[in-house]
Structures are given as structure tokens and as C-alpha cells.
């Protein structure tokens, strides 16, 4: 039942209404009484803090407290060894939470004094860790002297452990310590008191004492008041005074006090909330970079040099974080400024150009590529491409090697796409690299040229067909296929005679895919050769299909004879050859080839029969 006030202050006397705390006993922790006036606490410090009172309904069992600190010790050590999501660590954490819950069954807060070697409660020191791992010392060295844990702290314990773990790795040069980190975390169920060393020995100003004799000349006040009033004409008075309202002060009128002028309307508050969100979403980096670019355009050489130095520092920082977008931004803007020609001083232009040259340095690039390979940074292909296009031609070899040797397929693809931009900028360099003695680079350059369809590189790539390594020769064949030029096709024909089976097959398939007619006679020669007869079925098929792709009427007749014909002894050709001939006829796709296939439709040999039926099912586009 709501009651009237018993006295002016009774409604505010909540202490009278709260349940009376149990009398603390020798075993309970000390009633932490910090009065409002400075007083000496038991540690000898002069304190001046707000009063907090611990309501202690019962006696705290010291064995529970020991268990708590043991559990804390184990959890802290586990956190050092394991990641935060490790089941072993989580298990220790669970025990620690349980230990706190047992405390809350006996008390509704726990305050400990932080000492160098442990946490003090009721004159007993509880150690957590030793030496460098002494937890209490981590708090003590940063000035923390008291910790108060409150019920529900166990819900914040993961964050607490993260704080402890983080602070442990900080050193004296860090910009954070236990106090600053705890402040940021805004714990709800943890309070701490710390000695602020900043305040030690600080000189505070003394009050100017007022003596009874001190007096201000009233004339001074009168003069002050009349200072402007005599000159003021009625017409110059504020509107409100003209309306007969008294002035409130010489510079302020009643109108100034309209409440709406000083209150924020809900719409204004909403608008401000949006502004705060905008502020928090603001792309600070871009705005800072824009400021630097704007200012580098000021005709102030020393400042230009300083900004270039800053940009030189920012670039590796951005690269290290995988922020290629920001790094590219710097390069794009700087490039534009240098190209403009009349913005930077002579010396500064040279510095900017040196910056670009440094970026192409193998050491810088190697770092970047290593980070990409290890997955430390993960930019998109587009971002990588924009960045790499600012590299000089000298970086092409390194980048090509990286695309060839990367063990990560997704990265290879992105690098290839990115390096292509660079290749287009330096085609002469690319061709030079095709001729490199280093097979890895030569192959990569050849692949890149094929990807770019750099037709003028055909002869250089064809030169790779003379290399000793079969994989190099095969890569050259694949690149020549992509080029599609007549020079490239010439090269492919040479590859039909390669010592390596894979190279030959690739060349034959390539010529077949491109329907390169001039290769017909060579292919015809080869399919009738002993070499092919002695080769495996895959190679045979490749050559026959290639032949079929470039076949004319005479070719069909020859293939028909192979498939359906008999020798002098009325024997048909070996089934493999006949099957290959059928497959070749399937590639031809003319009525004559079809007729030849149908003649063999009643074939008994399964290999031949299957090849014939497969060929008949093929529908080839008209040539």
C-alpha cells in the first residue's frame, strides 16, 4: 500500500528498508567500509571513494574460496595453452564458474585485496600462478588494489579470461594495461579500485584564501553595470524589451529561453542517432588518405616529402593486412599526381618514382606472395590485379613463378588473372621471359601469353618445343593451341613428332580442336605409320580423331577402307585401328562418312561395334 511520506527524507532512507546484514564474523571477509571523507585503509593508502557495502548473509567457507582460486589458476594456465574454443579449456572454465556459483550461495559479493604475490582475503593470501605467471601481480603492477566480484560474474568469465590473456602479452611499451583494458570491457559484475600513479606527486592549485578585509569597490560594479546601458537607445533594444518585457540580462532576452530552443526534439535526436551511426561507419582510412592526397598537391616541397614518407610507411602496413584496396588507392593517386607533371617538385617526383620502384623489389613482392600462399591475406583477384598493375616489368618473372609454383589452386587462378594485367602492360618483357632458361618461368610466361592470345609470341613459344623437359614442351603445345595463329599451328605440327607421348597427344588434340586443315597430310601420314600402330589406344584415338576433324573426301575413303576394307587375304584390319577409324569418321560428319559407318553397323567385334555406334550417335555441326 502506497503511504505518505513519514518525513521529508524517509523515502530516501533505503538502508532502513533493506534486510539487515548478518554480523560479520572472524571468518567472513572484511566489511569494506570506505567512507566519503578521506581515511586510511588497512593498506595505508589515503582513499577517497564512494561507499560500497557488502551484504554478507552468511559466513564464507574458506575451503570454497581455496577451490575458487585453484580453479582460477587452472583456467588461467589452460588459457595459455589452448585456444578459447578448446574443449579442455572450456572444461576448466566450467569448473571455475561452478566455484563462483558456490560462493554466491554464501555471499552476494566477494572482495579481495590485490597484493604482489596473491589475493588477500581475511588475512589469508591465495596465490594464482607463480613468477611471471602470477595473476595477482598482473593486476598489482598496473595499480589495481581491490577486486570485487558480484553474482553473475560467472557469465562474464570468458571475457575476463580473455582480458587476462591479452594483458599478459603486453609489455611496457604497449598502449594498454590492465586498467585500460578492463575499462573498455565494461564488466557488469566486476568492480576494481586502482591506485592512479599519474596522481602521485601532482601539484594541485591552492585556494585563494578570502580574508575578512577583502572587499570589492561597489563603484566598480556600478561602472560595470552602466558601461553600455547609457548608450543604448530604445530602438536598439531587443524586441522583447520594446514590448515592455524586462530584460533578463543585457545580452540575453526572454525569447532566448523558449524551451524548444534548448531542447532536442525527438526528430533531432533521431537525426543525431543516424549521424552517430554514420560516424561509426565512416571509412576513416579513405578520408585520411584523401586528406594526404589533397595536401600533397599543395606546393610545399617539405610537406610533399613528408607525405611521401608517410605513404611509403603505409603501403607495407596495408599489404601486411591484406588491404590491397587501400594500397592500390595510394598507387593510383600517386601515379596520377606524378603523371600530371606539375604538382610535385623535381625531388619529390623522383621520390615518388623510387617508391614505385621499391614496390617492384623482389623482397617486397616475395613477402606479399608468401602472405598470399600462407593464407595470411586473402584479397580478391580484382584487388590483386589492380595492385599488381602498378608493378614494374621487373616483377613479372617473380609473379609468373608464383603462379606456376603455388600449391593453392584458387590462388593460382587469382594470380593468373591478376598477372595478366601486368603482362598486357609489358608484352616485350613477357616474350623475353618465354625465352628464359628457367623452365618454370618460361612455362608460366608461355601460359600467360596463351591466356592473353599474344600471337606475336608464337615463335618464342615454339622455341620451347626444343626444351628437354617434356612438361615444358607440353605447356608450350597448350599455349600454342590458345594462340591459334598459323605460326602456332606450325609449331604444333612439329610437336606431333615429339619424343614424349603426352606432348604428341596434346599436339594432335590441339590440331583437331582447331580443325587445322593444313595438318591433314601429316596426320594422314602418321595414322598410317608403324609408330602409331605401336602406340597405345589413347594416342591412336587422339591422332585419328584429329585426322577426322581435318578430313576431306579422300580422307573419308581412306578411313572407310580402314574400317570396312579387307586385305589380300580377305582380312580386316586389327580392331583397334578399325575402332579408331570409326571414331575418326564420327568426327567427319558428312553423308559419306555416315554411310561408311553404317556399312560397319553389323560388326561383330565389340570394340569396333561400340566405336561405330558411338560415332553414328554423334551429331556434328556442319562444316
Amino acid at each position, binding site marked *: 500500500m*502506497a503511504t*505518505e511520506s513519514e518525513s521529508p527524507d524517509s*523515502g530516501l532512507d533505503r538502508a532502513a*528498508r*533493506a*534486510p539487515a546484514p548478518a554480523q560479520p564474523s572472524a571468518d567472513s571477509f572484511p566489511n569494506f567500509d570506505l567512507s*566519503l571523507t578521506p581515511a586510511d585503509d588497512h593498506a595505508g*593508502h589515503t582513499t*577517497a571513494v*564512494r561507499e560500497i557495502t557488502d551484504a554478507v548473509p552468511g559466513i564464507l567457507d574458506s575451503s570454497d574460496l581455496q577451490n575458487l582460486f585453484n580453479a582460477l589458476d587452472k583456467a588461467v594456465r589452460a588459457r595459455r595453452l589452448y585456444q578459447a574454443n578448446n574443449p579442455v579449456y572450456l572444461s576448466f572454465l566450467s569448473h571455475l564458474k561452478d566455484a563462483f556459483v558456490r560462493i554466491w550461495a554464501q555471499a552476494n559479493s566477494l572482495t579481495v585485496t590485490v597484493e604482489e604475490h596473491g589475493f588477500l582475503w581475511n588475512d589469508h593470501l591465495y596465490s594464482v600462478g607463480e613468477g611471471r605467471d602470477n595473476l595477482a601481480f598482473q593486476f598489482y603492477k598496473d595499480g589495481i588494489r*581491490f577486486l570485487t566480484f558480484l*553474482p553473475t560474474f560467472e557469465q562474464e568469465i570468458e571475457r575476463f579470461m580473455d582480458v587476462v590473456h591479452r594483458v599478459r602479452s603486453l609489455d611496457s611499451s*604497449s*598502449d594498454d594495461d590492465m*586498467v*585500460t583494458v578492463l*575499462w*573498455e570491457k*565494461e564488466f557488469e559484475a566486476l*568492480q576494481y*579500485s*586502482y*591506485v*592512479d600513479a*599519474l*596522481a602521485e*606527486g*601532482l*601539484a*594541485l592549485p591552492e585556494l585563494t584564501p*578570502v580574508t575578512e578585509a577583502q*572587499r570589492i*569597490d561597489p563603484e*566598480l*560594479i556600478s561602472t560595470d*553595470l552602466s558601461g553600455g546601458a547609457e548608450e543604448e537607445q530604445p530602438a536598439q533594444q531587443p524586441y522583447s524589451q520594446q514590448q515592455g518585457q524586462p530584460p*533578463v*540580462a*543585457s*545580452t*540575453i532576452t526572454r525569447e532566448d529561453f523558449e*524551451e524548444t530552443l*534548448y531542447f*532536442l526534439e525527438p526528430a533531432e*535526436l533521431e*537525426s*543525431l542517432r543516424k*549521424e552517430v551511426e554514420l560516424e561509426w561507419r*565512416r571509412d576513416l582510412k579513405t*578520408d*585520411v588518405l*584523401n*586528406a594526404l*592526397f*589533397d*595536401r600533397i598537391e599543395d606546393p610545399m616541397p617539405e*610537406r610533399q616529402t613528408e*607525405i611521401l614518407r*608517410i605513404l611509403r610507411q603505409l603501403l607495407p*602496413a596495408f599489404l601486411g593486412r591484406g588491404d590491397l584496396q587501400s594500397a592500390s588507392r595510394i598507387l593510383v593517386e600517386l601515379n596520377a599526381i606524378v603523371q600530371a607533371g606539375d604538382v610535385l617538385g623535381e625531388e619529390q617526383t623522383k621520390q615518388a618514382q623510387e617508391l614505385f620502384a621499391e614496390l617492384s623489389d623482389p623482397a617486397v613482392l616475395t613477402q606479399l606472395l608468401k602472405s598470399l600462399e600462407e593464407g595470411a591475406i586473402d584479397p580478391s583477384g580484382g584487388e590483386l590485379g589492380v595492385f599488381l598493375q602498378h608493378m614494374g616489368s621487373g616483377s613479372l618473372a617473380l609473379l609468373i613463378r608464383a603462379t606456376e609454383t603455388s600449391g593453392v589452386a584458387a590462388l593460382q587462378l587469382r594470380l593468373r588473372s591478376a598477372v595478366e594485367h601486368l603482362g598486357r602492360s609489358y608484352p616485350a618483357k613477357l616474350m623475353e621471359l618465354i625465352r628464359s632458361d628457367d623452365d618454370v618461368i618460361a612455362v608460366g610466361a608461355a601460359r600467360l601469353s596463351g591466356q592473353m592470345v599474344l600471337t606475336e609470341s608464337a615463335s618464342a613459344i615454339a622455341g620451347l618445343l626444343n626444351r628437354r623437359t617434356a612438361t615444358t614442351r607440353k605447356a608450350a603445345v597448350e599455349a600454342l593451341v590458345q594462340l591459334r595463329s598459323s605460326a602456332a599451328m606450325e609449331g604444333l605440327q612439329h610437336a606431333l613428332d615429339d619424343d614424349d607421348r603426352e606432348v604428341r597427344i596434346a599436339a594432335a588434340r590441339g590440331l583437331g580442336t582447331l580443325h587445322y586443315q593444313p595438318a591433314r597430310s601429316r596426320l594422314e601420314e602418321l595414322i598410317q605409320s608403324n609408330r602409331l600402330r605401336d602406340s597405345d589406344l589413347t594416342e591412336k584415338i587422339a591422332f585419328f580423331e584429329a585426322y577426322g576433324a581435318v578430313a576431306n573426301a579422300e580422307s573419308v575413303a581412306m578411313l572407310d577402307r580402314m574400317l570396312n576394307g579387307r586385305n589380300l587375304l580377305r582380312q580386316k584390319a586389327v580392331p583397334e585401328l578399325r575402332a579408331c577409324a570409326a571414331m575418326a569418321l564420327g568426327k567427319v560428319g558428312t553423308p559419306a562418312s555416315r554411310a561408311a559407318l553404317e556399312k560397319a553397323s553389323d560388326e561383330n567385334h565389340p570394340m569396333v561395334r561400340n566405336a561405330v555406334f558411338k560415332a553414328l550417335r554423334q551429331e556434328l555441326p556442319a562444316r
Partner: protein
Amino acid sequence: MTDRAPLVQSETILQPLGRALVTAFYAAGQALKLYPIENATVQKALDELYRIIRRIIDREGVVDLKLVGDFLFLNDARLRLDLSDYLAFSHVAGMLNKHGVGEIEFDAALVREDLAPLISLLLQEAGPEDTAFVRFRDRLALSSARNIRVEPSKGAEIEQSREPDDHAKQAAKLTYFQSVQVAKEVLTDMRLGKAVNLRRVKRAVQSIVDQVLNNETSMIGMTTLRDYDQYTFTHSVNVCIFSVVIGQKLGLTKIQLYELGLGALFHDIGKMRIDPGVVNKAGGLNDEEWFQMQQHPTEGLLSLFSMRGLSEMPYRAMLLAYEHHMKLDQSGYPRNKRPRDPTLFSRIVATADGFDAATSKRSYQAQPWPPDEVMREMRDNPKRGYDPLLVKAFINVTGVFPVGTLCILDTQELAVVIGRNPDPTRLHQPMMKIIADWMGMMLPEPITVDLSEVDPSTGRPLRTILKTTDPDRYGIKVSDYFA
């Protein structure tokens, strides 16, 4: 002089619990407004409200929610609102105000069934203003609600009793002087090219944020300690304080206030790279000197790049240093070619900087402007380039006559403003300390008065401000009244 460093205490849990309470109160009110009581949404809202009240009772023994001025207090802790919950706060405050209720106390015996009648009554129309509270109290008594006690609004009387106590003043003083010391060290080290101890900077700014959140009046009072010889350093700290004060009014979170404060502390760091002869020149600057001075925002941006020891680039602080003279329409300096939109924080720092600079004695400004005139100029003259909304918020925090303003009253007394009137409709009638009587005698024990206090026989204010004036004219150090 402090011989041993004092203990500093972290914030209590009452803040988050208090905000949760207000939010739950609001939610329950909204639910009851829309649905019948047996509706699941209403029941859930009442459950949540009861849960939070019970939690506070379990911890504190009682829940005492008070409305004083436009602040809500939970068990004497002033609740901090931010932009995510201001709506809940204003609705709850509105409900209480409507019925003239200044305090609601839930005692330990509270049951869930007590809550619905209370909220329903608060949602109902209030009676005439002079009988609103009595009507409400009587209806509550007739309802089924038990274990709830209400008291009427007490207004300024209570706020007066909340004048910063000695502890709060001492804490504010320590924080202020620590921060000036840190500012001095940092700015001097920057000038000499030495490594900067950022941990001290962080601690200083965090302390300022804490002090402003707990009691901004004390911290604002510290800004009156305008030391001419250490102007650069005190100005940096003052701008930090004023910026955090504005940010707090806008409901920024603690971390946001910290970021704002950090940037504000460094806003003029570029001046360390300008010729001191130009920075401290008495009188006007010629064209060349003015050009040099206009470089300080850019120099500030560049300085912060060279600040070693930073684990992360302080981009926001850089932008605050760079943009604080740009003005709202970007007609200030430096001028930019690439797109830019100085955001809220830059505008806050600009407001704080403008105010502190205009109200301080400088090498080129022997006579500082009176704070009220400065406020008016900032608010009404768009050419000054300040965000009028932010100036409005600033006035809302500091009052028309900011803390530290020396005034002549119509009683011929001299008085210093020590705080704004808790009644938001009486910002022009601040809390003051009378320091000299009508005969000009300085009072060894200044008397605290509320200018809104009226003479019962005439209904007119007992005292009115006639004029604001310069303390130096009278040889008065207003800071003595905040020390």
C-alpha cells in the same frame, strides 16, 4: 599536493541494471497500451519487468527510481541514457512527470501482481497539475498494488542537495590536473620528436569520460581553471571535456566518448609544429602568419602519423585534428578537392574548441568573451560555421550561463554559476554561489542559491542576473569556487 595516489573506483552494475529497468518499464507500458492485460505480450513484458526489479532488490534490497529534472536515478545513481534507449527514458520520465510523481519505490516484498495496476495508472490521463500527484497516489492506494510507494516531484530542492560533494570535486580536480600534465608531456614530447606514452593518454581520457558520466558539472567547473601560461595544454583538456560532455548529452556510448575524447585531446597537436612566435603572437596576424596558422590542422594530421608506439593508426583522431576548422559548409580550412563530409565528431570538437577559445584569455585576446554571448553567437551566426544542433545540445548541458560565469545580480551581489538549474525550463536561472555581498564584501563562505527561487509574497524571483562580467576585472579566480 597529493603525497600518495588516491584510489579510483570503477563503475557500478547499477548502470546496466537501471537502463534495463527503464527499458522494461517502457516495454510494459507500451504492451499495456496496445493489448489487454491477459495478452501474452503483456504478460511477457510484466515478467521481464518483475525479473529485473527482483534482481535489483536481491542485490540492493530495494528499488528506488527517482526523477529529478530530466534525469532518472536508480538508488541514487544517476542513470546514463544513450541514443539506443533515450525513447524509453523519455517515455518513462514523461509518464512520471504527467502525474507529478518524483519517486517510485518497490520494496523487497513486491510481487509481480503489483506491477500491472501501477503501470495502468501511469498510462491514464493525469488530473490538473496541482492535484495530479495526490490523485495518482490515492488511486494507487485503492488499487491492488502493494509494496509500492510513490513520492511527488521535489525538483530543485533535491538537485541542490546533489551539489557535487567534496569527493566528486576532488576526483574531478585530480582528473583535470592529471590530464593537463599528460597533455603537456605528450605535446612536448611530440614537439621534441620523442616517443609518446600513450597509456597515460588513454588513462587520462578514460578518467575524463568517467568523471563526465558520473558528474559533468564538476568537470565543466574545472574548465574554469584557465591557466594563461599553460593555455595550450589546458585548452586541449578543456576541449576534450566539452566534447565528451556534448557527446554524453547525445547519448554516445562509453567507448564512443573515449574515441571522441582522445581525438579532442589531440585536436591542436599541429600547433606544436607552427612557429611559437605566430601561435602566441599578441595582436592580429599578417597574411603570411595567418597562412602559417591555417596549416595547423594539416600539421596535426601529419604529427599523428609520426606518433610512435601506436598499435593502431588513430585515424579518427587524425580526422578530428584535420577537420575541426572546416566549418559546417566546408568554407573553413583546409580546403579540399576530394569529396569529404566532416562528420559528427569533428563538428563536436569544433563546437567545443570554438567555445573554449572564445571564452579564454589568449595572447591575442586580452578580454575573453562572456560565455553567454559566445553561445548566442555560435548558435545564431551561421557564418561561424557551427552545427546549431550541437550548440543547442551544448547549451542544454551547460545552461545559458555556463559553469564558471561570473554575474552581477540585481541585488548588487557578485555570484558565480556553479551548475545549471535542474528544471529544464529554467536554464536561465542557474545554481549560483554568492561570493560578494551588496556592499562588495567577499564572503569567506559563499552562499549557494537557486535563482528560480521566488519571493512567496510577490511571486517574483528573489534574484536575477543583470550582467555577466569578467572575473579579472575584480581580481577573482572563479576556479577557487570549484577547487
